Structures are given as structure tokens and as C-alpha cells.
């Protein structure tokens, strides 16, 4: 079996840039490739340029800088599933999907059969005959994903597909992505979820303020962080000033704690070598300072921290700066 990403890439962006008509720079000098059988995650906060990157790769605008090259083996357009897909509200989900597949050149009967099959795979089979205008946000997302996967495009561009998906929808997406990989297709998806990117993506790209900061495998990013355990402490009473709590308890100097920083909105993140040794001392300091604790979670490092380590900006805050 060909390893993911081997061979000529399905899509390759070179020095891709985009400036909105009002002068806002959305993307600058992005070099990124989507290989065969590969799922690439694009991680970044709101406003980091993820959606713009996906739209440019889909070829929806000719007003960009740089270039997007497509593999010669790729026929037809890449399929883009936007974060907020647009449908004809007065047509049924099945009619919408069938129409969009027919517009891509599929024969009517083939388009309808493919639409029905993929609607069923995304658990919309029973609702296929309902008007799309009556769908919930999550159902619209699933309809958009069903259309993208049913399109037969080898390259899929999925913009924040997890945003409105329930756990069942998430499982179906993972299964569909696995199927796409197996068929030699590729997907580039944007997400805010480091956990999903870590488990489902072959490579991850970090975007910040329209620039590509780093691209690598999730394992490589996590290895670079080291093996220190993370302790997340949720403060009770909705304390809005975790920095104050951090300083009041002197957690940075607590035994076994390597680093300590606030975690929005009301938490603390401690990096420790041995959670069993460091946690009791840290809790003792917090209680001693009169700071109540709501919950404690011990976990390994994640891609959110890798993003922080490389950009100096927390993933959950980067777009709000």
C-alpha cells in the first residue's frame, strides 16, 4: 500500500496569498501540499485564514497571489464543504444533493443513487425527503459532507466539519475519511479541535494571522513538546482571573511543577514530570491560598500546546488578539 502523501500531490499551493477587497490580508505566502491518501488538518483560531485557504484551494476565487496546482490525475473540481453550507431551503435534502451532483456532471439516476447512499451514511436517510430549510445546523453540516463525499472528487476540502457535529456525526466523518484514504483520495480539513487533528490527521498545519507557521505529523509536534504530563485545574466559582490565582498560590514554585500558566476562562495548566508527586503539593498551595478547585484533569501534551510553543499564542485566543 502506498504510504499517505507519497507520489504527486493532489493539490499544491505555492506562495498562496489573498487580500480581501477592503484591504484585509487574509493569507500570505502559504506553501502546502495535499498528498494521495492523506488527511491534512489545518489548525488555527478564528481569523487565522483557514477558510480562505480552503476556498482558494477549491478554486473559488481567481483574485489570489501565488498558485494552486492540481494533480494531472485529478478530474473535476475539488469538493469543498463550507462551514456553513448553502442549500435551496425549499428543496428536500435529497433534491439538493442530487442537483449539486448533477451540476458536477453526474447522470441523473447515478446522482440520485449516490446522494441517497451518502445521505444514509451520514444518518440523513430518514430525513432525505424533508426540506433542507427545516434541517438543524448539524444536519446541514452532514448534508454538506454527504454532498462532498458523494461528489467523487479525489480532493476534499472540509471547512470546520466538526463545528456542529454530534459524536455520531463525528464517527461517521472519521469512517468516511478512512474510506477516502483507502481509495487514494485526500482531504484537507480545518478544525479548532487539537484532539481530532491528533487522532485523524496524517499531517497538521498551523496557521496564524494568515501565515503558515509549521507543518508536520502530529507525532512530531508532540515529540517536540517532550513527555511531561499536563495537569489542568478548573477553578471553582467561575473565577475570571486565573493569573491572579496562579500568583497567589505560588504554583510556579510548587515542587515538581516545571511551568504553570493560566488557561482560559477559569483554569490553570501545570506542566509536571510526575503528576502523582506534584499534584498534592499544588492542591495544597491552592487550598492554602483560599482558592477553591472545581476539577482536576491529568493528560498528556496536545497539539494546542504545540501551537502555543510555536506561535507564542494560545490556540483558543489567537483569533481574538
Amino acid at each position: 500500500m502506498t504510504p499517505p502523501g507519497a507520489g504527486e500531490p493532489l493539490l499544491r499551493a505555492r506562495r498562496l496569498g489573498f487580500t480581501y477587497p477592503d484591504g484585509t490580508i487574509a493569507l500570505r505566502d502559504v506553501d502546502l501540499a495535499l498528498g494521495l491518501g492523506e488527511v491534512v488538518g489545518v489548525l488555527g483560531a478564528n481569523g487565522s485564514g483557514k477558510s480562505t485557504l480552503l476556498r482558494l484551494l477549491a478554486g473559488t476565487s481567481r483574485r489570489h497571489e501565488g498558485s494552486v496546482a492540481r494533480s494531472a490525475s485529478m478530474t473535476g473540481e475539488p469538493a469543498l464543504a463550507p462551514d456553513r453550507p448553502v442549500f435551496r431551503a425549499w428543496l428536500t435534502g435529497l433534491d439538493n444533493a442530487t442537483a449539486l451532483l448533477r451540476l458536477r456532471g453526474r447522470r441523473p439516476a447515478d446522482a440520485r443513487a449516490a446522494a441517497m447512499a451518502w445521505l444514509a451514511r451520514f444518518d440523513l436517510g430518514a430525513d432525505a425527503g424533508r426540506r433542507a430549510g427545516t434541517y438543524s445546523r448539524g444536519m446541514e453540516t452532514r448534508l454538506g459532507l454527504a454532498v462532498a463525499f458523494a461528489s467523487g472528487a479525489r480532493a476534499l476540502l472540509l471547512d470546520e466539519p466538526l463545528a456542529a457535529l454530534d459524536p455520531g456525526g463525528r464517527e461517521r466523518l472519521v469512517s468516511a475519511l478512512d474510506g477516502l484514504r483507502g481509495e487514494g483520495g485526500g482531504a484537507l480539513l480545518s478544525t479548532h479541535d487539537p484532539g481530532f487533528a491528533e487522532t485523524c490527521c496524517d499531517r497538521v498545519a498551523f496557521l496564524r494571522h494568515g501565515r503558515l507557521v509549521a507543518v508536520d505529523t502530529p507525532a512530531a509536534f508532540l515529540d517536540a513538546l517532550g513527555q511531561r504530563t499536563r495537569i489542568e485545574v478548573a477553578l471553582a466559582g467561575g473565577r475570571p482571573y486565573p493569573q491572579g490565582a496562579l500568583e497567589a498560590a505560588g504554583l510556579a514554585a510548587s515542587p515538581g511543577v516545571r511551568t504553570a500558566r493560566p488557561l482560559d476562562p477559569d483554569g490553570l495548566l501545570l506542566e509536571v514530570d510526575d503528576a502523582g508527586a506534584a499534584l498534592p503539593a499544588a492542591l495544597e498551595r491552592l487550598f492554602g491560598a483560599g482558592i477553591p478547585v472545581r476539577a482536576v484533569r491529568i493528560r498528556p501534551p496536545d497539539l494546542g500546546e504545540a501551537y502555543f510553543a510555536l506561535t507564542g499564542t494560545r490556540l483558543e485566543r489567537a483569533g481574538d488578539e
Partner: protein
Amino acid sequence: MTVWWLAWRSALARRRLFAWNVAVPALLLTPVAMSETAAPHRVAVYGVFLVFFSTFGAAIPTVRDARDGWLDTVFRTGVSRRAWLVQTALAETALDIVELAPVVAVIALTGRGSPAASLALLTGALPLALLFANVAGVVLAALVRSLAEAALAGAAVSLFLLHFAGFFRPAAPGWTRTVAAFDPYSLLRVALEQVEGGSSPATAHPWWPAVMALSLATLAALTAGRWTRRFEWPADR
């Protein structure tokens, strides 16, 4: 023919809107057709209504579809812009004819002209005028930034062409008469006057308006790849 299919499917899925589009022209124009109003005035009212019906009916939904991202969704499938324009204009023209059929029948039956004139209206001048109005509406939608601007531009362009077609007063000798001879709505005016039993002669060259209307529609189709970019993401409307 997917765009054609989609336009019909959409129209038939919205039955109440379809019924309104049949009822409103009938409610507005039947009293005019049944009244003792002078024939030239009736012709002017018919002309304005029929042309506005198709121009607004094309421009306003197109602006809305561009703003909400539907056209971007359609163009992302790789469908040809030219095919999209041609099929959309033909489908919407056919729908307009179906929706206007009752009121056009009333106009034909209450007119004092010959059955041949009514037949000419139904089969030639009206479809041609509605097709041109639909294409003009879509092109105008690409030039404006809002629904209000679409309505304003649609009204201004339509009234300008209706004026030069002689709907409001006969074209004066000289350059206005020359313009009128090429005006895409001239045939509609002549056909409506003949349905009303008027003595207005046909234009000097009855094919010129038809050639002009079809030439402009063809030009719009040939250049669709360029001006439909206004409908693409990002909307800088």
C-alpha cells in the same frame, strides 16, 4: 440541463409563490383589460408590467442567491457560466410565460385586434421580450450591490428601453425613431398595439428588435465567464 431542471424544481416546490405569481398579474391587469381606458394607455401598462415582471423576477433572486452563497456553491461544481446563464434565462422565461398565461389570455380576449395579432403576441413578441428581460435582470444583478439597487437599476433600464420602444409616446422622427427600430421591446409594443386593435404599423424592420435582443443576450452569454465573477466568493458587493 441540470440548471433548467433545478429552476423548474425550485419553482414547483414553492407552490404558494407560484400561485402568487399567477394571481398578482391577473389581479392587477384584468381590471385594466376590462376597463374603458384608451388603448395606448393599456398598452403602456401592459408593457411596463410584463417587462418589470421578468426583469425584477430575474435580478432580485440573483442578487439574493449571490449574497447567500448559492451561486458560489453552483459555480464551485464546475458548471459552465455560459450554460448557467442560458439555462437559467430560458427556464425563467418559460416559467414567466406559464405564470403570465392567464393574464395574457385575458389581454388577448378583451383586445379588439385580430386573433392573428394575439397569436403573434403569444408566440413571438412576448417570449422574446421576457427572455431579454430575464437576461438583462441577471446582468444587472452582477452590477449592483443590494436588492434595492437591483430594483432601482431594473426599473431605470426597463423604463429607458420601454420609452425608446415607444410605449409612452410614439417615437419622434430622427434618431429616436432609429433607436426605437432596434429597441428589444419594440416588437412587444407593436404586438400589444395590434392586440388592442390599434393602427400602429409594424416597425420599419420587424426583425431588427429581435436581432438586437438575441444579439445582446448572446453577448451576455459569451462574456458570462467574466461578469459572473461578481457572484463569486468573496462577495465584494
